[in-house]
């Protein structure tokens, strides 16, 4: 019974995170996957179950690590940067950074390390260029607090704010090869004015 509850919980969380579906589509069955900032390991558990991947995760929160290990995923407690440094080159087929880039201290270094350790990097982030964010800023004159960025400025885990265009420019400047890009509005894909209408972006690099 406990197993059933756990599974329901994990699929419910997956539905709440539209980028997980895209990531699930990208990842080839049986590949080696490292999830940075994997939280409670919902995505990894799903990938193990449905794609038979070899899953590893890094997470800083002890409580999240505990739940991830209880779920059966090999997760270790640690900082993303130190975690990546230990891995040999191309140890993984995919290194995932889901909704965490905006929280990392040195995003460029993290991206470089992801591409060193993984054959591909999958990066998803909330789009700061979305119209709702622009409107919130324009009409309230305050740091935007929206569905995508639900925090007060003083308790937000986000320390960088980037739009889809910002990320594209960065990849061009640093030579990070973009293989595919996916833009999501709610649960749906969108390709029209992504930097204005896309809520979440998922980039496949490598």
């Amino acid at each position: 019974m406990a197993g059933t509850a756990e599974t329901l919980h994990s699929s419910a969380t997956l539905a709440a995170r539209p980028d997980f579906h895209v990531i699930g589509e990208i990842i080839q069955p049986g590949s080696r996957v490292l999830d940075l900032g994997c939280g409670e390991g919902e995505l990894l558990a799903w990938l193990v179950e449905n794609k038979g991947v070899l899953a590893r995760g890094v997470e800083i929160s002890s409580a999240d690590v505990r739940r991830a290990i209880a779920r059966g995923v090999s997760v270790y407690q640690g900082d993303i940067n130190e975690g990546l440094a230990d891995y040999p080159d191309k140890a993984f087929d995919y290194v995932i950074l889901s909704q965490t880039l905006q929280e990392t201290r040195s995003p460029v270094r993290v991206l470089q390390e992801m591409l060193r350790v993984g054959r591909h990097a999958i990066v998803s982030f909330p789009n700061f260029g979305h119209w709702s964010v622009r409107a919130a800023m324009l009409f309230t004159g305050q740091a935007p607090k929206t569905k995508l960025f639900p925090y007060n400025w003083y308790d937000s885990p986000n320390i960088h704010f980037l739009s889809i265009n910002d990320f594209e420019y960065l990849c061009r400047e640093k030579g990070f090869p973009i293989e595919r890009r996916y833009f999501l509005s709610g649960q749906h894909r969108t390709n029209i004015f992504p930097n204005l209408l896309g809520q979440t972006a998922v980039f496949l690099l490598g």
Partner: protein
Amino acid sequence: MIVETRCAQFDSLALEGGATLSPVEVAYETYGELNADRSNAILITHAFSGDAHAAGISHETGKPGWWDNMIGPGKAFDTDRYFVICSNALGGCQGTTGPGSINPATGAAYAMSFPVITIRDMVHLQKMLVDRLGIQQLLCVAGGSMGGMQALEWAVSYPEFVRCVIPIATTWRHSAQQIAFNEVGRQAIMADPDWCEGDYYDKKPPARGLSVARMVGHITYMSDESMREKFGRKLRQKEKFGFDFGVDFEVESYLRYRGNQFVSRFDANSYLYITKAEDYFDLTNGTGKLSDAFGRVDTRFLVISFTSDWLYPSYQSQEIVRVLRRLNGDVAYCDLPSNYGHDAFLVDVAEQTEIVRGFLDSTARTAKAA
């Protein structure tokens, strides 16, 4: 669950130090049932002063096992699902051959003529026991402190034989601080005139020395915070200081009680030999190259440390995890928050239970699939 300690006997055991022990006896207990394909066996390795009685209620003494909160029906090591084995370590004094055992060559206790043993020797003997029980592969070897050292040694000595290991609150080599505390304990015993160079078996044992050694030990198993919470400066059955050297404080009373209690169940020479084995423990044999020791690891690891453990600090577990990661090994690691210090793996088990259960379950499932 009423349990009984059994005994297995072997003709001989060649030791790392060059000597051979003959014969060798091992005291062990088992809980749960071995399944048809013999794939559900878990070996529990005990800490410094532990014994084979890890779970259930002892038929002989009526006491619960030392890890009864972790082993049993529905617990972390679920005996409804797994077949759990625990044996008294080599050099011990609870049924397995140790310095207090009779040397067949002389008809008297070995005492200090007992050869110096190592953690690896303990593990070799456990392997012989597991073979005797007809098990071709262990699902898991798990233990805390010295038990964690044995779990690590299993992964290095018999990597094909263990699906996963769970080293808890432990280290891959004993540190200067750990050796230092052990040496204080040994010196306390050897300074006791009753020790008599170890030849006390037909006389009175070095109770004062052993009890002081245990008092020091107990301090290292707790934390500043847990001692403050448990004792503070509370006085023992008095309102004001006695202005003498009797017991004033609760903490003094506790340590004396623990020390005295220990004397009744533990052999001083076993203390010397087992702490020496701990101090010699270095998974790399002195090279410091942990990655060479692990080699190509297929064994899954769940490494657990506790935030307030200053005897086996978290960084020592993290060193293990880092090397396994570099080798691209399958390793899960959690630094569990606890105030209980080193003792946490024995007493603060709610969160430990959660992760051990999930980790074992996923290992058992993948073992089936493979």
